């Protein structure tokens, strides 16, 4: 009985250990991939505040902002984040007369600016914290 079990279990042990190693390497891979190409030329960008390795999905350290940016889970968005707490089209940051405005696109879990849930379009200033789903960004604008 023991012998048969042991002969079967030896394969199981090896499969489990390798699955474990694969799991760890996958997490590290996601971590490294999000670092790549983070050279910043743009003046205005979103910077991730969370530590990347605590998040189980791909997210970049820095997102440069152009005139109009939509954040959401769907692939058509300008910034795609596969966080389950983020809606398909979650929020929008738009440029209007030299100033950036943050607007919630009727998302399920809401968009927070400096800890407060926003209702209407809000003007962003340097150093604002934007929270979407589990992710928190720092808004950086250098003039």
């Amino acid at each position, binding site marked *: *009985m023991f012998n048969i079990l042991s002969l079967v279990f*030896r394969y199981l042990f090896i499969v489990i250990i390798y699955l*474990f190693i694969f799991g760890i390497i996958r*997490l590290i891979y996601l971590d490294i991939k999000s670092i790549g190409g983070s050279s910043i030329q743009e003046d205005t960008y979103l910077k991730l505040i969370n530590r990347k390795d*605590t998040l189980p999905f791909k997210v970049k350290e820095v997102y440069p902002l152009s005139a109009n940016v939509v954040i959401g889970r769907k692939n058509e968005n300008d910034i795609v984040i596969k966080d389950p707490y983020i809606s398909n089209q979650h929020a929008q940051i738009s440029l209007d007369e030299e100033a950036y405005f943050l607007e919630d696109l009727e998302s399920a879990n809401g968009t927070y600016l400096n800890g407060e849930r926003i209702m209407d379009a809000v003007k962003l200033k340097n150093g604002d914290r934007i929270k979407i789903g589990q992710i928190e960004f720092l808004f950086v604008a250098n003039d």
Partner: protein
Amino acid sequence: MLKKIFSYKNPQNLIVLMNILALVLLFLYKDQYDRLILISGVLLMFIIYISNFILLKTSSGDHYIFLIMGMLVSIGIIMIYRINSTIGFKQIVWFGISMIAYFLAYMIVKKGKGWQRWTRYYAAGSLILFLLTLVFGTKIKGATNWIRIGNHSFQPAEMIKLVFVFFLASYYVNKDRLLNKYVFLGIVYAHMAFLFVQRDLGTAMLFFLVFMTIFYIYEEDRKLIYYNLLGAGVTAFFSFLAVNHVRIRVETWIDPWRFIDNKGYQITQSLFAIGTGGFFGTGVGLGHPEFIPEVHTDFIFSAICEEMGIFGGIAVIMLFLILVYRGFKIALNQQNQFFRIVALGITAMLGFQAFIIMGGVMKLIPLTGVTLPFVSYGGSSLLSSFAALGILQVASEEIESEQEEEHEHRIQEDH
């Protein structure tokens, strides 16, 4: 449902699964139906799971190193328990104590201030410990590096390892704390001389490699590095000629088969064990690792290779590789110079220690007795490895308390 819980996306659950399977297997082993194994198995899983949970809640730093360590400890305990159940249970108790040491080291190093200022105290502390070992030391297994207090014996060298890393780091943060670099080199080589006198060659080699790594990276006088390497080479050669203890190690490394009935016995048995295992191993409990003397401490890697196969052995090596990779990443990300060097030193220490003993039992390099970190049986070794990991955890976090200002500051620097 089951597939979702035990998928590769949840590495900590895989550790639990591994332990449950081992529990079932060891419960049936030799038809003993031992109650102790049930208690210890549940205890082991409980400690790993709870500790991981606490760590996720309290630490903002790296969360991989703890998981990797959990897997290594599980593999180690399964093998040790299978070799000798009394020792296996002791190892689980030691693991529990080490977990406390881990969190203590984490708290103390995190809350403490001014670690980089105590260069002289580190040097004095470790030299005093060495002297104590020489005076009160007892000889166990050919090396005089144990101090016996009552019924318990411990290896001061394990503690000195950590102090040594702190010493190196604090020196390179501020070199003015010692008179000049020759005093520094003198203190470093005094460590190795003491270890050599105690006949603890493996640990002496380990200290040298850790020292050389940090020395190579941070020393500005590049010529001095080559002089040191040259000097070490010459010393090694002359000790091979003059010291009997060293010559035996080299001879059994070059040709163990000639001495198979005496001094080459251990290494040849280890090679037989690795050979018997094949790709998938004989299966846990079906091999004969007990033929190798000291299999539960230094030669645990041969036992893993025999019963879990070469794939199991490669897996252990890969786990150490990932651990070292994470350690270097922590060192690179750390902004505080002192903790940067400490992280580097600890990583080098764990990595080289694993290399020295795994290389030794495979006859890749001359065999010297050090333990395989996290896997081998041994209280002092487990305690110091866990304390080292706790300090590495501190180093993986941001050290400055003015986190927000730091953050802003670094964004400016990026441009």
